[in-house]
């Protein structure tokens, strides 16, 4: 199979396509919102994008490992419900700290359950996490039946308004995560992740710890969803047991746009982060352009269907020609 230059380039930098889309979406957005690059506007955008970015990173890692996590949205909801009820609008900072720690453990626990069922009981990832998503969604509603609760304004203000050297807080968080990812990729774990997602049998034959790696991806995804839930709570300053629902599909879409295919074994997290930003910008454009919001759902879904169908379409075209 001869590869084109574009294929080679996208192999080395799977986020090239996403970067191109980002430029387009950014330009369109900047035309509608000329002050887009001013620190405060940048901040007000990035703080909204951050929860999805965090969730998408976890999703992308699961997808590189050959799986998928449909339960991330519900984990965000659980964490949001937990924090909104346990900290409350008048809560003190030490309670908040403790509860955030608890939230991270809850997220990892939920991920561990997914991982256990998928890696060790060997259930289908898509069905398993779809099923567990209802468990977590139910749990969120049990904790917080009606929207309410919240987080103290000192905390939400820190999240919403911190700007260091013209750059919003979200940038520093993303930079830190990219740094951790860069190190992870250079460890054996990073290699195993791609090997397991690429061809699990071959990885097993070679002696890679296939199941442990699969398990770990869901724990990481749960952890990232919990971080996303914390960010979401600080962003909204309130509790709603369904707040995470739209994040599931969006995180998968963002990962796919970012060059992390559903077939596993390829991609990275840089692309998915860009993908999440693109989705946020598209939402901005839609709201500025005054189009109905269902367009947003439509665009998300269309991207996924297209991404799924593309390999098949390419094969069909090749066969016709051959």
């Amino acid at each position: 199979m001869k590869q084109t230059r574009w294929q080679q380039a996208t192999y080395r930098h799977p986020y090239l396509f996403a970067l191109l889309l980002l430029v387009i979406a950014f330009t369109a957005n900047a035309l509608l919102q000329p002050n887009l690059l001013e620190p405060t506007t940048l901040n007000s955008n990035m703080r909204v994008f951050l929860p999805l970015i965090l969730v998408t990173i976890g999703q992308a890692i699961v997808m590189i490992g050959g799986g998928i996590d449909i339960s991330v949205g519900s984990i965000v909801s659980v964490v949001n419900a937990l924090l909104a009820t346990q900290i409350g609008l008048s809560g003190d900072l030490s309670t908040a700290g403790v509860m955030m720690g608890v939230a991270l453990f809850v997220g990892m626990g939920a991920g561990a359950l997914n991982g256990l069922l998928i890696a060790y009981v060997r259930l289908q990832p898509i069905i398993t996490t779809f099923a567990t998503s209802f468990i977590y969604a139910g749990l969120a509603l049990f904790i917080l039946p009606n929207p309410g609760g919240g987080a103290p304004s000192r905390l939400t203000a820190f999240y919403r308004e911190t700007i260091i050297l013209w750059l919003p807080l979200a940038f520093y968080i993303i930079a830190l995560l990219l740094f951790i990812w860069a190190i992870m990729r250079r460890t054996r774990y990073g290699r195993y992740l791609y090997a397991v997602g690429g061809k699990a049998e071959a990885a097993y034959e070679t002696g890679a710890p296939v199941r442990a790696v699969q398990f770990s991806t869901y724990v990481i995804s749960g952890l990232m969803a919990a971080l996303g839930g914390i960010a979401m709570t600080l962003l909204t300053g309130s509790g709603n047991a369904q707040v995470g629902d739209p994040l599931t599909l969006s995180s998968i879409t963002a990962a796919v746009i970012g060059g992390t295919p559903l077939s596993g074994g390829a991609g990275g997290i840089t692309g998915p982060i860009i993908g999440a930003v693109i989705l946020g910008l598209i939402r901005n454009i839609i709201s500025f352009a005054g189009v109905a919001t269902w367009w947003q759902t439509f665009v998300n879904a269309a991207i996924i269907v297209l991404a799924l169908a593309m390999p098949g379409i390419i094969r069909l075209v090749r066969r016709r020609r051959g």
Partner: protein
Amino acid sequence: MAPLLAVRNVAKRYGAVQALIDASLEVSPGETLALIGANGSGKSTLSKVINGVVAPDGGQLLFAGRAVRFGSPHAAKDAGISTVFQELSLIPQMTVAENIWLTREPLRRNILIDHRTERRRTEELLSLFAGTFRADLTPDTPVSALLPDERQIVEILKAISVNPRLLILDEATASLDSRQVQRLFDLIGQWKTQGTAIIFISHRMVEIEQIADRYSVLRNGQTVGEGAMKDATAGDLVALMAPEASGGAIERRRLSPDDLATRRVILQIDDLRTGILRGVSMRVHEGELLGIGGLKGQGQRDLLLAIFGGIPYNGRIMLDGKPVHFTHPRQAMKHGVALVPGDRTGEGLLSIRSILENLLVPSWRDYGFPLRMKRAHQNASVIAARLDLKMAGLDAPVSALSGGNAQKVVIGKWLLRNPSILLLDDPTKGVDIATKAEFYRLLTRLCDEGTTVILYSSDDEELISLSDRLLVMHDGRISSELAGASLTTANLVAASLGVARRETP
């Protein structure tokens, strides 16, 4: 010198099939042993016992003088046994370097992968085969961008990168060109001087004669001979491999070559090429039973699939005197060509659906709307009776049938369409002897009725007793045609290994 590995009286059974009965071999450091045998003789099972992929039922493995039992391929690898697998163990999305060093990456500070060292070591390995692959193959090339021969080379390098004490090459030369094979043989020579023991499995007798020091021959799961290569001729080895006729199969009255010559040519193929086939030409006569033989994976399956329109191909196919080029099995079916796949449960049957439904799957469109169930039932009953199908009723699920009866349903569903050419892909694999006999009678009757049958089988005896004519495939080509007096097991085995082609150029 004491042997590095001694295998003594190993037995292995898979369900009803006794793959190995009594297999033994010895290989010493610095020695190349050729493990040879016909189809189904048990050579892959034996190599899998040695490298820990399957656990033997009985017998003993001595490695470096100690009794061993490998629970996994990994355990065998840790002991110093490395295998170049036929089914590739590479991860397509990862680069050459990443694949070769997977799980053994050189580390800095015990945590970070040392890319520079990894790259350098990969380049050293690649230089072993320098000049035999494309220049743009670097340690950073993804495996998915490689050609089959280059992947095979990477696979070999991966196996050798652990510095094994015993290297098993299982058909490792199958996808290599002659220059690459020559380079591999040079390298084997070097590894031998370093004390590596090598077990070489190949379907090419020429290569075996060139590289092996000793041989060990398997026949029906038993070791039937071993010795030094220099004391044996290709003819001797073939005689050892060819199984004695067991007399179980029925003898079909063969159509004589003269008789065949008077018959109409129904299928004519010229220079057929696919990824595996390298120019196949043949004529098939009406009512003939043409056997396709040879060791597994020599292109037999591709040949049948190409005729059936299941895979793209280049070349000319004439059906009944008219040129055709099927790009979809449906077109082939319309022209009266039917293919009975080898993997019954996977490709041939909907196991939870009824026998009736399975029989009618290819024919429903002839039954109108709404479906004329009464007529369907009648036609299915006729076929079931013709096949002597033993069943509780047409409405019973296929999964309730025995293996042999399930096989009849696969054939029966095509018979309902009255095919003029029936392609069979190893139809009696895993079928018991009684059902086989019944199946042979069915084939004989079909041919007498004028149906043309092209039968690929991995059972050599079956091919010899059934075929009017037998084409033996080797490396994607037809290496020889056996008919009349030349249609013997010994000739088939010899041709399978590419011996005949050398003797009669």
